[in-house]
């Protein structure tokens, strides 16, 4: 629970600064309240009040999960770096756990780079960012088969500006529901 809250907090912070986030609002969590998950988790006791409590807790957890996933599915990288940053690990974990809990869900990780490099080098860099993000998702329980990676290099900047603020937004990997 703590982890999720942290994820929500981090996600919220990131969502706040990353208003550039494109498309697919909450799409990863769209198949939410998966009935199978709630049945297995919920059926712990016969007491109605306990049932109710469990259901409430579950609903809260699901809401938090969905919020974490929906609020942020983007991770950001320093210049010419493709390793996942500590600050983004909670986001990756929340998304990875979501995928682990929803085995039929599929995601695409889209890697991007800022314009300071050649287009081809940036395509390669974006691919590595996507792959490393995928690795993080798998480490959090997702299966490799659930995740496809793609790089857009510097071709699809979230911010077309030619300054550090824009570049910081463009050095990014997005986790998108397929």
């Amino acid at each position: 629970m703590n982890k999720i809250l942290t994820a929500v907090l981090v996600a919220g912070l990131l969502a706040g600064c990353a208003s550039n986030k494109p498309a697919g609002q909450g799409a990863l969590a769209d198949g939410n309240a998966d009935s199978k998950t709630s049945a297995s988790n919920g059926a712990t006791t016969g007491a109605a009040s306990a049932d109710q409590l469990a259901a409430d807790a579950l609903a809260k957890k699901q809401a938090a999960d969905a919020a974490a996933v929906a609020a942020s599915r983007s991770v950001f990288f320093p210049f010419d770096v493709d390793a996942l940053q500590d600050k983004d690990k909670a986001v990756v974990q929340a998304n990875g756990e979501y995928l682990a809990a929803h085995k039929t869900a599929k995601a695409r990780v889209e890697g991007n780079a800022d314009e300071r490099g050649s287009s081809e080098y940036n395509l390669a860099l974006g691919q590595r960012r996507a792959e490393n993000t995928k690795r993080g998702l798998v480490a959090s329980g997702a299966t490799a088969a659930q995740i496809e990676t793609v790089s857009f290099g510097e071709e699809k900047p979230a911010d077309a500006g030619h300054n550090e603020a824009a570049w910081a937004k463009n050095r990014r990997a997005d986790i998108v529901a397929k």
Partner: protein
Amino acid sequence: MKWLLSVALLMCINLAQAALEIEISGAGENQIPVSIVPFDGDPTLSQNLVKVITDDLLRSGLFKVMDTVGREPHEPKQINFADWQGVDAISIGKVTQADGKIEVRFRLIDTLKKNEMLGQIISGPADQSRKVAHRIADIIFARLTGSAGVFSTRIAYINRQGQQNRLVVADSDGYGEQTIVSSNEPLMSPSWSPDGSRIAYVSFEQGRAMIFVQSLLTQNRRLIASFPGSNSAPAWSPDGQQLAVVLTHEGSSQIYLIRADGSNVRRITNSGVIDTEPCFSPDGRSIIFTSDRGGNPQIYRMQLDGSQVQRLTFEGRNNFSPRFSPDGKSFVFSQFNKGSFFIATQDFETAQLQQLTSGNWDKKPSFAPNGKLILFASEASGRGILASVSSDGRVKQKMFSQQGDIHEPMWSPYNQP
């Protein structure tokens, strides 16, 4: 009369379509002083031809084009050589048009030796007067410099306007754009086959980077690499049989060889880091490429089997996009240092680096097939433009397109389909 009018209209349309403004700066050393005398015949047509020939010669950095100050001989016997002191050679002649064709009879006169260096007849369709002028410029260039001219060759580049991306082929001066592919998704890395008949490029039209090879003759195209992940950076071998490409399906971006029909894929690098932007040596035996195996992107060379890897660049923070010179003795690349990109060349033997542009946002250089000029992508007012620099760095040219954002240019080989 009616016919003449339609020719005139056609020319007006051509002028209106002229999509570029050209700005030339710098002065070469030992430039050859020449004059291009207006041709006898239709004054507007003559003026257009003279303008194209003059711009071509100026852009090469090897000529000083002197004003004719009203002297207009059209035949050798009309030349008063005393008028042309300080000019090494003059071009004279006449242009005629009939049956939708123009014909230029021109002579190149050595004003020092007072003799005719060459006389030739160049003709072409009336709506392709620029091509006729480029051929004349090529002949003048070759006669006076001893190197083949490249003004009749073409260039390929990506032009973006909003959501639309176009792969374009144009004349060497950026005029006469022809769209080869148009897509709402990104296009990248056009690469000419050695015979100039095909272009390999990267298209995201299926959601991720895949490599296509397209014929310029038939427009038929073939998807040659669509492995999982990215498929990119196509570069032709000099014999046109295979390409070096970059694939990520086995991990990081690595260099592979693949036949032009997409068969026989062989991996040649095994670095586990980023290896990209391969370019074959003119003899086809080695490849130069960009790799971050040393911690940041630099230029390396290897044999075709991936052996004997050698780092070539040590200056500058990052170096990208290497391309061999046509004689194989040097390579051109884009260097990133102190926040800007500039174009530089480096000699293989001496490892001497020469910075050719002063640094702004200059990327993706490629040599003209005669090795005298380098085409690259630059930026002006936040927009991508084409630019060129003479290989000695002395003369620079910017070509401003009226529309669109231009990226990823590559100069064609001599051969044209």
